[in-house]
């Protein structure tokens, strides 16, 4: 299952939901090993933080095989430029609308664990602090070394422009590690 966002304050609400839709959500929650409540929270969070923006901006949803075929013929620098526009325009707008501070923790919580995975930039994400005190952000994907180079350049630029902290990176064919100094 894709990453869950965790938030603290809760409010109770009783709803009358279309029975077949609720049944589908319940079945999916069961398959994923989470409660119906947790599953609905995730769906609502994704709506607020991501899908509503993608609908408002009329974003395109592209199946992975089509994206891979398109990406093959696109110049890497052009793709980096396109992604950088998202970094300097779309993401700061999402943070401002939702009153979220652009700290590295919030970037991890809302972008790397949320929007970037939901948006298909990577298929999984994890992070840890290494022995040199760097916060290491590890993204895995299936689009090859060109995509690793593209997202490494673009995401390091994104981190620097949002947090004002320098970010280094390492690339492998299906993995990117971004490193940001803690503190």
């Amino acid at each position, binding site marked *: 299952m894709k990453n869950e966002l965790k938030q603290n304050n809760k409010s109770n609400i009783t709803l009358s939901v279309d029975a077949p839709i609720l049944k*589908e959500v319940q079945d999916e929650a069961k398959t994923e090993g989470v409660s119906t409540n947790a599953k609905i929270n995730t769906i609502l969070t994704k709506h607020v933080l991501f899908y509503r923006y993608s609908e408002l901006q009329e974003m395109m949803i592209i199946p992975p095989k089509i994206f891979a075929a398109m990406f093959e013929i696109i110049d890497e620098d052009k793709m980096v430029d396109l992604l950088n526009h998202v970094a300097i325009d779309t993401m700061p707008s999402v943070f401002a609308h939702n009153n979220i501070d652009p700290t590295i923790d919030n970037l991890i919580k809302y972008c790397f664990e949320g929007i970037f995975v939901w948006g298909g930039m990577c298929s999984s994400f994890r992070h840890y602090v290494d022995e040199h005190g760097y916060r290491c952000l590890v993204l895995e994907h299936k689009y090859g070394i060109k995509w690793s180079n593209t997202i490494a350049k673009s995401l390091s630029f994104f981190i620097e422009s949002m947090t004002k902290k320098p970010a280094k990176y390492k690339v492998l064919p299906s993995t990117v590690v971004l490193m940001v100094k803690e503190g």
Partner: protein
Amino acid sequence: MRGDPKHSSKSNITLSVDTSILKEIKKQAGSDGLSINAKINQILSKYALFYTHVEKQESVIMPHKDFQSILNDVDENKFVENLQKNNLDLIPGIFLERGIPFTFDNVIRIVFEIIGRFSGIYSTFTHRKEKDGSTMLIFSHGFDLKWSHILAITFSNFIKTHLNLDSEYQVMPSTVIIKVLKN
């Protein structure tokens, strides 16, 4: 019918929802002129019918402008071939999963009115029956003539392959008209 977006049977459920997310959804419901119950039903229906498949497929969600920029460099025939193989071939599976008969009317209602529009491949869709028994399908989008050609060829092929119906199409820079002939 199972899978129908308009349901009559309802189930009551009490949820504990993140306060900030609920507040945001209430705000959106207010501006859409809906009750909070109707808004959450809408979000859950959209998720069950569309976004859950987007997530399972690990699709890439891309800004409109970026897609246009990439589209300029892509070979039209190759793109049509990819769309058919990797995108539209999934549609009959969605119908089967939800127990919806694969009829032309249901394709209009589910594929063209919901899935296609949510995925951003066009922004508006209308359809009407003509006196001669044919059906006009009209799609408008914000891209260019090349995209009109891609949509026209892909949809006509889809209708022929999966529904065995002949069609004729007309393309304009931002609109595609497909006339599906009476069987």
